[in-house]
């Protein structure tokens, strides 16, 4: 049996599932097969209001990776916010920069907090090596601006997600945009001092600990040109 036949059988099992348990099993099997043809069916499974099936479908889409990105971007369901949140989660897990505009818009403007949360997280998991070097600075700056804004979201969980992304971005830009790094550390400090939510403040502190090697670099070598410090500290997150 070739992949295509297998895909048809597994897809039919999803379509014909007549209980939520059967649906879950069928989606899990289809996701585990890792076949590109499964992408539309997996995307459809994001909208079945079955959290187990959606988790399995997201995992499957992430495993398929780049091939799932354009269908996800095209098929993102504009009226079902539950499905949209899962689709954004899949895009975040894949980390493909083609999703950047979708993630930026969703993180800043979507009315659903679970969509904003997933998008905020996705902005921190982008695979920067895909970006052409000449565009890297401007795109990272754009993501930084967005995250600084999102970290003031009224919902704690969106701010929490923004903190995780500020953390990874701080580590990424220590190399590429070291003069912007203080904007992240300042924002984190301000959140630690003023955020009303203990969970968010705790995550901020954890982020600060992880970023610390970069902070030391600033504190202890203020007179050196910042560009000069990048090489010795590359990957210096040893803790």
């Amino acid at each position: 049996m070739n992949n295509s036949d297998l895909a048809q059988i597994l897809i039919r099992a999803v379509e014909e599932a007549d209980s939520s348990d059967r649906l879950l099993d069928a989606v899990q099997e289809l996701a585990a097969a890792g076949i590109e043809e499964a992408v539309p069916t997996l995307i459809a499974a994001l909208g079945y209001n079955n959290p187990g099936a959606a988790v399995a479908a997201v995992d499957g889409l992430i495993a398929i990776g780049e091939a799932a990105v354009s269908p996800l971007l095209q098929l993102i369901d504009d009226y079902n916010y539950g499905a949209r949140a899962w689709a954004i989660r899949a895009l975040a897990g894949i980390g493909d920069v083609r999703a950047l505009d979708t993630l930026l818009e969703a993180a800043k403007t979507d009315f659903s907090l679970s969509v904003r949360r997933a998008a905020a997280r996705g902005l921190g998991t982008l695979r920067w090596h895909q970006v052409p070097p000449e565009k890297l600075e401007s795109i990272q700056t754009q993501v930084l601006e967005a995250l600084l804004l999102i970290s003031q979201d009224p919902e704690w969980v969106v701010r929490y997600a923004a903190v995780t992304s500020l953390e990874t971005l701080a580590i990424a830009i220590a190399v590429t945009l070291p003069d912007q790094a203080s904007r992240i550390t300042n924002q984190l400090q301000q959140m630690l001092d003023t955020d009303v939510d203990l969970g968010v403040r705790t995550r901020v502190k954890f982020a600060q600990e992880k970023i610390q090697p970069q902070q030391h670099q600033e504190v202890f070598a203020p007179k050196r040109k910042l560009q000069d410090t990048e090489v010795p500290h590359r990957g210096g997150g040893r803790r």
Partner: protein
Amino acid sequence: MNPSPEKIKDLSLTGDNADGGSLTVEQAIANLESADLGLRFYAAWWLGRFRISEPAAVTALIKALEDEADRTPEGGYPLRRNAARALGKLGDRQAVSPLIRCLDCSDFYVREAAAQSLEMLGDPVCIPALIKLLAVGLQGEQLISQPDLSQPYDALLEALGTLRATEFAPLIKAFLEHPIELVQYSAARAMYQLTQEPVYGERLVQALAGEKLQLRRAVLADLGAIGYLPAADAIAQTLAENSLKLISLKGLLEHQVNHITPSTFSEGAIKVMNLMDSLL
């Protein structure tokens, strides 16, 4: 079970377009005595939602606990329910005695809201009144033989756990056998709060593997409320919305950081944060 998933969803939606009827504080307080019963009902909700804790709001809401104008066909008191819910959120202990009186109200949902708000206000003076209601379902220290549904037992048990009614643990424990699962979970939650014995936390962890989504959601809220760290993995893996798992795990995390010195993270806190990151 409190907060219920529906309430969380409502809050998330209203949080984004924050007004609906776009009231001012003065209007809302005045509306509590409006001729339009719909406006009264909405104003009571609004004052709680936006945590308007000024004295005039508290006084007006306490007065609304004795409202006779707004009745359902079944004899319920919609305005009293909303006023009781709002008073729990405003944190003013003047409301404690009036809420205790609400525990005698003929409307089940007023009694439920009063118990929940008394839990939030945190004043143990209400414990005897809560126990009196709980005892309706008991014969001595046993459940009465005919399953009783006449009282909001889940809310009563949760309040007694939060208020540390340790001396009444035997009465609370009896409800572990109540035929309604939600009530059993509330009893397990309260028993864990009173004794810190893992067996009660594990009872809730087991419930995360149960069949019904609605019950798994309720248990997520319970585990978050008691901060039962050994549940972390089970919470992350149960079949439910990530939003609810994140709230539950945040409860665990906050419980951890409340119990450590300020400059270090416990292994448990780090584990919980990593799980939360993976669910975002």
